[in-house]
């Protein structure tokens, strides 16, 4: 069952939010969405939990429902399978729109704890998983080469 939400007041709509999304890379195609719903019908996440809907996120974005969109957990649950993008008759690229929305949510300080932890790891060790002694030994035993560098570039590029 999809929970019923209270209607949104027109006075709370924020057209600057819509404009902001439209101007980001990946956001510009959004304007031509005609709400056919093929995206939601194709979405593996919606098939697991009907509370999540790509079409609704897109419509809310176009309406300027900034707070509802940026606080919606669904933007983080897009698994980027790209089925919606392949099927969209209007060439909207919903996974790219989700990236724009996630970036804006991060800017507003709204993100899941897993993301904060991941960024901390990247900034500390410069890669997603450490090459610890156990891994290094296992690699050596298998005759695999030592993993070379790259961590410094990550730390530098992620630094402010």
């Amino acid at each position, binding site marked *: 069952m999809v929970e019923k939400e209270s209607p949104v007041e027109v006075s709370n709509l924020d057209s600057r939010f819509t404009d902001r999304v439209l101007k*980001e*890379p*990946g956001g510009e195609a959004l304007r031509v969405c005609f709400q056919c719903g093929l995206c939601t019908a194709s979405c*593996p*996440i919606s098939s*697991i*939990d009907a509370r999540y809907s790509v079409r609704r996120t897109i419509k809310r974005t176009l309406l300027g429902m900034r707070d509802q969109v940026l606080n919606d*957990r669904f933007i*983080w*649950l*897009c*698994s*980027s*399978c*790209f*089925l919606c*993008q*392949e099927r969209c008759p209007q060439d909207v*690229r919903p*996974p790219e729109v989700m*990236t*724009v929305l*996630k*970036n804006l949510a*991060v800017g507003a300080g709204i*993100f*899941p704890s*897993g*993301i904060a932890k*991941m*960024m901390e790891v*990247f900034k500390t060790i*410069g*890669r*997603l*998983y*450490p*090459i610890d002694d156990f*891994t290094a030994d*296992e*690699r050596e035993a*298998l*005759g*695999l*080469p030592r*993993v*070379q*560098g*790259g*961590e410094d*570039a*990550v730390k*530098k*590029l*992620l*630094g402010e």
Partner: protein
Amino acid sequence: MKYALFLGCTIPTRALDYELSARKVLKALGIETMDLGFNCCGFPIEAVDEEKGLALAASNLSLAESNGLNILTLCNACAEMLSKAELTLEDEKRLSGINKVLKDKLGREYGGGVKVRHLARVLYEEYGVDKVKERVSRPLKGLKIAVHYGCHYMRPSRIYGEFDDPEFPKSLDRLVEATGAESIEYESKMSCCGGGILNIDEAVAVEMTKMKLEALSNREVDALVLICPFCGIMYSRYQRLIMKEDKEIPVIYYPQLLGLALGLGPDELGFQLNMMNVKGLLEKAGV
């Protein structure tokens, strides 16, 4: 044929069987690779900051460029991120913006033109299925294989062009058939592994993983064959939570299968590292 081998973050720590078998198979086929000091492809960072994700990808492209090599990836997500960057950076404005960052922080720039190819695509498109078939010395007759492509291998099609169909791909099926094994059709063949959201919601991710494994549990299948380490994490590590032991499905990487067909031994191909029981599979393969 020579490429810069792009391992990414997951393979050299979590999928050593994939790395080992890929290196052995590439060598056996005469495809040369070089290890450069690549950094993270940028894929996990994109959600936080698209610009920084692109800069990480561009840093890798510039490294390959300075070595005069195209990139061969083993991970679908790395392939997608780097291929998308390759396309995005054809835009002069984005390229000059990113180059400012690269020059400032790393003292280098990207000029453009580096190609990014997944291992399976290289074998299918450049090396050729027929040539793979010619190299087979131990045909894997009688093996029933379920292939899993992984979404980012051929989608989005706007970055990959038309080397394979975005919804009904066939390259991996053909590569499996080249080993003498059969690639079965099955329900949920194209379902997503859920790996992309593991970090956000484990329960939803595992629900997605379950969809494929449950559909396969009712089929006669000797192994699930993958070409992405993150799909590997989902279908191997999480299989224990999802499936009863008597329904266990061996999960292997394509170069492990191809390696057997090329006459390489299971230990050279990392079968001893597989999380699922592969004894029955190897026996049936005649190894």
